[in-house]
């Protein structure tokens, strides 16, 4: 009797400690989210203030008053639409070329042994991990190269079709690794089984391998989209009017004066697709993280 009571008491204290832990974790989580979103809150407030001012505190809401005028101004601007179209075009092209280039490469790396395979994979790994100064040097070299081509009569500057190729090249090393490790985890027996069952190569690839790796494909497409959508530096160098470039140019007015509220409203509009994408593709991102994806 006594022992059973003590077990009961023990389990009660165990429950209590578990409950307490959960409360602590929840509070901590809320604090972290708050700290992360606090600047975002200021951006939202700034975007909704009347006049072009930067919000310095919550009390500015009473001082200036709230309105959607900056949003309306943004979406009624023709230049906004034309740059939006360019950005969408570039994003779609980047997604398509990324999938077309990365998928066969990753499948080949995963399933076949060929001369130079390991060396190439290692090179991919090195290239995907080198950043910082090397990346800047690469961009400068790229710009010089493209400017030379332009002066030789090949239209590279201001040409939106150049950007998807550059963005895809940037995606290749890391995403090939990601998709390769995904294919590695997909049993080879799947291919072999369909091989014996009489499927042709195209059936194996399009009916078995690709559908079975749908979530990896979605991740690749998403990364490609984000790389294309959010990129500003190269697009600006090459004088392609993407949405990011448009926002930069309208926000920074003549004389380096910054229209803060316009800038904030446009930035939020600009971020919306990515936020929606993250929300929709959340479970695929989880899966990608399991395969060691998602760059830091």
């Amino acid at each position, binding site marked *: 009797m006594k022992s059973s009571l003590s077990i009961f008491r023990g389990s009660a204290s165990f429950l209590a400690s578990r409950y307490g832990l959960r409360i602590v974790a929840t509070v901590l989580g809320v604090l972290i989210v708050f700290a992360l979103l606090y600047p975002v809150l200021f951006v939202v407030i700034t975007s909704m203030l009347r006049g072009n001012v930067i919000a310095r505190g919550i009390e500015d809401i009473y001082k200036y008053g709230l309105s959607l005028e900056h949003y309306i101004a943004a979406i009624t601007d023709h230049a906004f639409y034309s740059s939006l179209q360019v950005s969408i075009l570039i994003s779609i092209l980047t997604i398509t070329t990324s999938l077309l280039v990365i998928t066969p490469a990753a499948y080949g790396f995963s399933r076949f042994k060929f001369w130079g395979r390991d060396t190439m994979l290692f090179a991919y790994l090195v290239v995907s991990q080198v950043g910082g100064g090397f990346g800047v040097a690469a961009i400068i070299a790229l710009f010089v190269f493209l400017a030379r081509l332009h002066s030789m009569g090949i239209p590279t500057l201001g040409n939106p079709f150049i950007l998807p190729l550059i963005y895809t090249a940037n995606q290749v090393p890391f995403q090939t690794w990601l998709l390769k490790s995904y294919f590695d985890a997909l*049993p080879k027996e799947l291919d072999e*089984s369909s*091989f*014996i069952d009489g499927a042709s190569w195209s059936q194996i690839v399009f*009916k078995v391998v690709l559908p*079975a790796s749908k979530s990896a494909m979605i991740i690749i497409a998403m990364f490609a989209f984000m790389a294309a959508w959010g990129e500003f530096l190269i697009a600006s160098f090459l004088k392609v009017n993407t949405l990011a470039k448009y926002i930069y140019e309208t926000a920074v007015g003549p004389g380096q004066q910054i229209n803060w509220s316009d800038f904030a409203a446009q930035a939020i509009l600009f971020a919306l697709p990515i936020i929606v994408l993250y929300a929709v593709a959340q479970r695929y991102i989880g899966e990608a993280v399991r395969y060691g994806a998602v760059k830091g």
Partner: protein
Amino acid sequence: MAKVTLIDVVKRFGRTIAVDHVSLKINDGEFYAFLGPSGSGKTTTLRLIAGLETPDEGEIYIDDRLVNYVHPRDRDVAMVFQNYALYPHMTVYDNIAFPLMARRKQLKLTVSEVRNMVLEVSRLLGIEQLLNRYPSQLSGGQQQRVALARALVRRPKVWLLDEPLSNLDAKLRLSMRVELKKMQRALGITTIYVTHDQVEAMSMADRIAVMERGRVMQIGTPDELYYRPSNVFVATFIGAPPMNLIPCSIVEGESVEYTVPENKSGGIAGSGRVKTRFFMECPELRIPIDPWIASAILKESVENKLYLGIRSEHISILKARPLESIGVSRAVVEVVEPLGSESIVTLRLGGEAIKVRQPPGEKYSMGEEVYIDIDLRKALVFNAINGGLIT
């Protein structure tokens, strides 16, 4: 239905030789097992027959047709993989229908014909209520059935099974064993079954090829492998506990004359009235042997290093010394493992540990001195140098 023939097949991976001059003849409708430890080349041999690997040397025939370089899909074989290899994005129905749909045009099937074939095979395997589910929603046993159904739906000539039961739990494995055998009999389909589990092979197969390090060690029916293993490897690989191998040699001594009792005649001791100078000298054990057999053994084994092989059920334990003493020795009880229907008693015979299968009931204590009586008719003699069976 088909027969499968392998002639001197060799497969190398780099410098390792995975399949080493394997020759087999699998009959039409036979249930044939490749049995061996891991790395013995049994799965590679199966993959060679399936066409997933091409042989470096030798010839593979399916029904008198040379298939060395024939594409897997044109061999009319179906394979079940150890991990089932179900397509994760397809329902059970689509999985089973895949082999038919993949070449529906070639087979000239209508969608409703495919449907009927899928329903028929899923009824056979008792999975017709699962057809709308996805593989991830099935238990291991159900996934296994789907994999079997997918391999059967095409009515292939040869059914290849690569350790299909090893991912199931012990209880399910037992029932699937019976079911697989029943199904194979009912369909009369030539079946090649790869396993490392000797009980599985023994209980299901008509014939078994025991493999080790890429070579076929012996081909035979389960009984042949069990009672007349052609070498030490098969003797110790088949049967649980494995065959006892007692190191012995033949010695010449003073001539004796003895009568072999009725229940021991016909073995190495000879039969009837025997006069001999030869003895099998083992630890704690000296068995007079027939001079003809002795000279035959010595001819086979010049080094005179032998193993006396005896199955655990062919030794009996006696508490008191029996009257006649041929094949009888003293031994000490080391461990007793009661298994319910029987007990496995480990005894020490000189420096050797031997295992004896005993009916339950008799109690032995550790360290107890007993007598063992070897059934010499069942005893085998192996060459200890090359492992081959002598008599």
